């Protein structure tokens, strides 16, 4: 897999710690389950902290403390399961979350622009993605029928401007 941000492959600076493993130095992510049970210990660590959330966690559960995470990794267990679209969108729109939201799992090229519009700004994609030009998909549409979290203009507003 390769991590892509702003259309470019980047080094993943986060260490994704398994449940039960000791926390290493530097920025780490932990699972939502571990955060639930071991929050006090983890919180003592001075390093940057991220969390990996299953798509069954409601935004009401994570929203209030979202701001303390440097990255929130949302999951698409398969490309047909779109719960994380809502998770990302609500984190941005209702909880004002400004950190990274990263998509993992069964991500399709043709979903990337939907993800970006919902506020996802980092993508774990298969190695072939760069050679196949997946991130061209972020510019396939420049017109949108609804407001979203990417702050791009949308048609209803553009029409009012045109009037």
């Amino acid at each position, binding site marked *: 897999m390769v991590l892509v941000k702003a259309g470019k492959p980047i080094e993943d600076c986060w260490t994704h710690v398994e449940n039960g493993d000791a926390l290493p130095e530097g920025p780490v992510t932990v699972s939502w389950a571990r955060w639930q049970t071991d929050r006090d210990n983890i919180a003592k660590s001075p390093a940057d902290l991220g969390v990996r959330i299953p798509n069954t966690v409601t*935004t009401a559960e994570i929203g209030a403390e979202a701001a303390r995470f440097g990255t929130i990794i949302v999951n698409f267990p398969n490309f*047909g399961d*779109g719960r994380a679209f809502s998770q990302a969108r609500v984190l941005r729109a209702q909880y004002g979350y400004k950190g990274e939201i990263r998509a993992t799992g069964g991500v399709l090229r043709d979903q990337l622009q939907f993800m970006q519009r919902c506020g996802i700004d980092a993508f774990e994609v298969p190695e072939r993605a760069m050679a196949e030009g997946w991130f061209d998909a972020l510019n*396939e549409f420049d017109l949108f*029928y609804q*407001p*979203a979290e990417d702050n791009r203009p949308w048609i209803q507003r*553009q029409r*009012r401007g045109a009037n």
Partner: protein
Amino acid sequence: MYRYDEFDRRFLDERVAQYRDQVRRRTIGQLSEDEFRPLRLRNGLYLQLHAYMLRIAVPYGTLSPAQLRMMAHVARKYDKGYGHFTTRQNIQYNWIKLEDTPDIMADFATVEMHSIQTSGNCIRNTTSDPFAGVTADEIEDPRPYCEIIRQWSTLHPEFSWLPRKFKIAVSASETDRAAVHIHDIGIYLKRNEAGEVGFQILIGGGLGRTPLMAQVLRDWLPKEHLLSYLEAALRVYNEYGRRDNIFKARIKILVQALGIDKMREAVETEWARMDHTKLDLNPEIIASIRAHFAPPAYAAPAADGDAQLNAATASDKAFARWVKYNVHPHKQPGYAIAVASLKPLGRPPGDCSAEQLELVADLSEQYGFGEVRVTHEQNLVFPDIRTENLYAFYKVLAANGMGTANAGLASDIIACPGLDYCSLANARSIPVAESLGKHLAAREEEIGPMKIKISGCINACGHHHVGHIGILGVDKNGEEFYQITVGGSADENSAVGGIVGRAVASDQVNGAVDKLLDVYLKQRVDGEDLPATYRRIGAEPFKEAVYGAR
């Protein structure tokens, strides 16, 4: 009707280009069939038994002559010379080649049509009353709100990968011609006590394995909140709808599990905490969309319009019968709403040839204001025929296989494509519809209003649960059998029909339906319809008639 502006046109061009590239990537192997499947489905392309099937959206069932002519062109150039109108006001082509599909979509884009979200687990084409804008009994034309929903739901970034498909219908009449209660979200335009027009929002209707009627989510919603409220409801569904079992994934199952009160609480809570300001509709936006649906320039009634009509009905019995069943009152004096039947006896319901499509386009210009509607009962509606022109109009229809005087009668049968085309079906629907329609035609006037609906499998595309008489194809050890239900209804008194008894063989369907109808004719009082009789006398007399006393 709604006409695209530069934004709509550019958007659709971008969509066609995207799809063309998806097909290219599939062809060179960058996309596996598993990866391509959800993409083609979201463009209305199914792989059926014999070929690809392409479903084109007809937003809220309204068509222009240019669109009809393009439908004819596509039927001729890419299919076998005909199309098939569906129970959701769309059109399907059954003999399509994958490599042609980008060009077909580009052709349709030139007449402001598309196949976006006509399949897949996303928000589908919004349907409406085929008499919208011309019927006297509506609060206001519901189609501007359908168009507002169409735009909002098109490539919605959050709701394009839902647990299951999501269907919305909007109606504004006391008489429900849009089957609002069987939709995931059903919307009625409604006045509040102060007389303001807003929306009643229903949720959780649907057919399939678990037929359920929608319940009231909110009794009255101010117009400006339409989209923000829908967004709240869809978010609750996207978050909580089941994804572990495809048969439990529709929102109706969530509503059933939570109960309507908890569902309402969840939607209202979400609605209260989200920011409405961007999505709420200001009055100018609503007015600008409504302007597209402004009434045409109606002329005063002809002085002798009624006299001409009466003379024609007196001299031509067939025409008189057609007027009785296929013509409906118009809100404008001097005009009528006319139904062109796509149910000629012994033919597949809803099929329409390229020649017929072109004729319909011509007739809509010659006798109307260039507008045609598709009904969920798979017929076509001409909304604006002048009274004195009805006879001449009828004669052209009749000469071209669309003048059958059976609208709303027993031979006006809804049927899904069934095992003749569909890879999901357990049994054929079309031959059963053809045979039953012919069988009942002789006494359909005596029977009166009658809704017979046939599905070839439990997915219920033919709406069998809500037929006055419903027929469901089932497979028994490789043989086609048919389970019959009675007493269902899709109108404002919607109800799921009751199963009469064990399924019967295909050659016994006509006889069993005869027996059900005999009971109805004997027992009905005061012109009540079959569902009313069924509510009054219960299932037993019907069961006994078909299967004998126990």
